[in-house]
């Protein structure tokens, strides 16, 4: 997807967090390169990818950090989610323990991360419905209660993969517009003050 030359490109740091083997790297590979590798090696440390996404008339360039899921590398995660514009917490719908771990990541993000970080909850391996262990409703409820948006994805079949990143980009741009609104509110205060002043003059 090519960006329009004249348009502004906004850089966004995005981090993927989640238990080992939930498919974080597969999600990123599907999004960035359109590939799926059946037997993906575990990520060690973190892998970096870059991908540009066009949303309406604007362009978002994601700087994607695909982190290691092993507990041993948990302490490296703050370096990657610190200052991130968005985070995708990934769990495996066929593995209830990974959902438990995902909740802990959400708690850590909310406790230590940037309050403005856009958070997404991704239930990966949605194509393996026979082996499902995490009901979609349960995850959806948890997401709503904690301010995340939720999608079930499948890196294998590409279901909802682009939609997750697209939704994040949209919310990033909306957040940018929301920051402009308060200035307008400040402007609205002045006419009221003037009216008060006029009233004072009259009285």
């Amino acid at each position: 997807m090519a960006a329009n030359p004249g348009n502004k490109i906004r850089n966004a740091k995005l981090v993927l967090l989640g238990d080992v083997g939930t498919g974080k790297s597969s999600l990123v590979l599907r999004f960035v390169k359109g590939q799926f590798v059946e037997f993906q090696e575990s990520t060690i440390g973190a892998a970096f990818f870059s991908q540009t996404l066009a949303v309406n008339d604007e362009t978002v360039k994601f700087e994607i950090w695909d982190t290691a899921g092993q507990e041993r590398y948990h302490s490296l995660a703050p370096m990657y989610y610190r200052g991130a514009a968005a985070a995708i917490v990934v769990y495996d719908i066929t593995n209830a323990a990974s959902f438990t771990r995902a909740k802990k990541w959400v708690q850590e993000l909310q406790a230590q991360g940037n309050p403005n970080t856009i958070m997404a909850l991704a239930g990966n391996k949605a194509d393996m419905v026979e082996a499902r262990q995490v009901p979609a409703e349960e995850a959806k409820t948890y997401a709503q209660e904690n301010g995340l948006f939720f999608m079930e994805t499948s890196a294998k079949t590409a279901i909802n993969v682009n939609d997750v990143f697209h939704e994040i980009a949209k919310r990033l741009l909306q957040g940018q517009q929301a920051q402009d609104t308060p200035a307008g509110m400040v402007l609205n205060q002045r006419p009221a003050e003037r009216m008060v002043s006029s009233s004072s003059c009259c009285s």
Partner: protein
Amino acid sequence: MGSNTPPSRAALEPFATLDPAALAGLPASSPLTVRSAAISSPYLYLGTGGGKLLLFTLDSPSPDFLRLLPIGPTRPVSAILPLPAVARLLLLADGLLLLADPLLSRPVRRLGSVRNVAAVAARASESDDDRPSCSLAVSVGKKLLLVDLTLHDADELEVRTRDIALVDGVKALAWVGDSVFVGTASGYSLFSTTNAQGGDIFTLPESSRPPRVKPLSGGDEVMLLVDNVGVVVDRSGHPVGSSFVFNTTPDCIAEVYPYVVVAGDSKVDVYRRKNGAHLQAIPFARPGTGGLIVASEDAGIGSDVVVIATAYKVFCYRKVSAVEQIKALLRRKSYAEAISLLQEFEADGEISNDMISFVHAQLGFLLFFDLRFEDAVNHFLLSETMQPAEIFPFIMRDPNRWSDLVPRKRYWGLHAPPKPLEEVIDDGLVTLQQALFLKKAGVDTVVDDDFLSNPPSRADLLEVAIRNIIRYLCASREKDLSSSEMEGVDTLLMYLYRALNLVDDMEKLASSQNSCVVEELESLLDDSGHLRTLAFLYGSKGMCSKSLGIWRILARNYSTGLWKDHAILPETDSLETSVGKMSGEEIAAVEASKILQASSDQDLVLEHLGWVADIDQELATAILTSEMREKQLSPEKVVAAIDPEKVGIHQRYLQWLIEEQECDEPHYHTSYALSLSRSAMDAVRLGSNNEERNNKEFDSDMQFIYLLRERLQFFLQSSDLYDPEEVLYVISESELWLEKAILYRKMGQENIVLQILALKLEDSEAAEQYCAEIGRDDAYIQLLDLYLDPKNGKGPMFTAAVRLLHNHGESLDPIQVLERLSADMPLQLASDTILRMLRARVHHHRQGQVVHNLSRATNLDARLTRLEERSRHVQLTDESICDSCRARLGTKLFVMYPDDSVVCYRCYRNQGDSASPHGRNFRKGGIFKQSWLVSR
């Protein structure tokens, strides 16, 4: 992310091995163990466990031992930091910081009073101060100190120390930019040297190896180790790129850009900095004590030397350049790896475009000599600097026209000089046979396995080779080449097409714009019977006479059945026009006409016109009437050359000459008219003699005759330059009456024209139209006479006469009409018309009377008005003045205007009688006075 491919390259190559003890001249009884190493070009420093410092130079072909400096027998040297900015060497020995001069010519001196130093790091980037200086970060106990060293005159060193932080358990330090990176057992932190603020980067997991910190990329980045994972961060502590994954847990790290060199247990691994790919593994025997040490120059990116030290030996390695690495692979015939490596270097920008082209060309030649012609040409095509002439020797044996053109490039001397293709294949097949023999004997070779399992035949190889060289030469034609090289490309391309008998390609190349050298090809093409190609080639080179000669021969051979051109098929695209299936004879004529249409050589055109006309008269006509030639042919010679029997060509040529070339020579106009006339007469005669044929043919013939006569009539009408008498003589005995009428009209024979139109053709409308054209009224009388007295035994044409009287009666004089009506005229036919004519005359007379009398009345009224105007009275008094000059009139002569203004006679003379002093102009707007006949 690490690469799974086992490392198979030599990114670093050894160039020296040092035995420090032997070189220093120490006896075997006092062992020397290396504990630390550092490089500061051109010097190599080694620190020993026994408290000695050794200096070597790396300048000469092999390192030379220079000097040994004892520090203290109980002080093992654990770190050496060159400080070139202040001309010092910093040593960390047994917790003390010592300073030495770069040449080790003076005893070491202690730096400050600090002891128990755990770690030390020098600022990586250069200082901006005016004075030469550098800064150190030192960890002492729980303190993190900054030590600033400034060099003054007379080699005096100023030392200033300040605290910036409290950190416990520091094990590793690095200083890049304004940040000091601190590694402790619990994790990594970053401290700013400007404001002393600190921040955590990440914590280490439990039971981790000790932290290691290494500046990278010339001081722009820092690698922080976690187990066997290297996390790279920038100066602000933010992560950069994917993590490195090392095969072993690193003990020591060095950078020789673009590689990271890692020493682990008993081996050294080389990784590519940009993508963490594992390139090379260098095994070392496990040392008795201590681990491996790797050292390189930290100052910049430009260094290319790395030193690997064991306890008792030092190995010096040099970075192998990108070109050398590729060359080594090519030398082993590892083509796939070389290509992969080339793409890698190309992506990283480590190799210039010219070198990339060079490598592609070299690869191409190597593959060519290995008989892999398709791959070879693919690489030739990727090389932008390779010249097409370099492959000429494969095609044509030296010496030839282009021998001097072939650049004598030796490349890397990995392949034999190019030689004729057959020899390359024969040699390759010999090598293949030897490889087969060796393989059966159990010996591996570098020959392609596909070839070994399925050996190709010589003929197949030759064809594949030629086809691929053709592909290369075709691509070369798109380049900007010198004219002589382009000649070589095109000529040899034709040569190769001929070798494979690719007739369509030969003809396409020969007939398009090309740089073939005819002298090199004509005898070959003639011998092999490629006459069509030769004809096309002659044509594209402007050798029209030779080309036409061949087409003529081909046409003759086709017509006699001697020549059967199997390449001529309905599907072939070598012909621009394919209307159904043309015979070879016709094709030859078509090709010849293309040349003749563009040729201004009159003799050549007329020489070949005959045989082309024999085959196709349309082509002959196209040749004669071509607009493509710069100088048109002489009509006189053309007409003389045209076979009189080929009337169509003659007519079409004359038509073109007259209508398009606007020739105004009466002779040709007359010739054209005569030719058309004869054709029309023949057609009419032929048509009338075959009235018994079926209706379809009859209609077709009628249509043909009609069109032919229409063309004749059109020309006779529109041209004024032919001789009508001559044409008239030719058609005098024919039934071409309309044509005769046109001719008599050109000759001004009005009466004869009227006779033909009115009596022969009985076309009253045309006859009346002709009378109108004549423009005189007596023409109608003349026509009336013809109608009433046709002569030649024909009866009076009363109907036509009445119609004439009806249409143009008012133009005729009734007396003349009545005089011409004979006593035999049945008056009941014309009575109405004659009556109307006579009444019109009476009407005209009476109308004239009315107009006459009305004019007399108007004249009378005007005279009366004038009289009244002249009878007006004006009263003058003594006070009356001129309306113009305001002078008193008195007894002067005066004038009164119609608007009652009065002026003296002198003013009247001055301003005339058209304008009054009141500004009225009587000439433009008159004054209307009321009268009894004319009112306003």
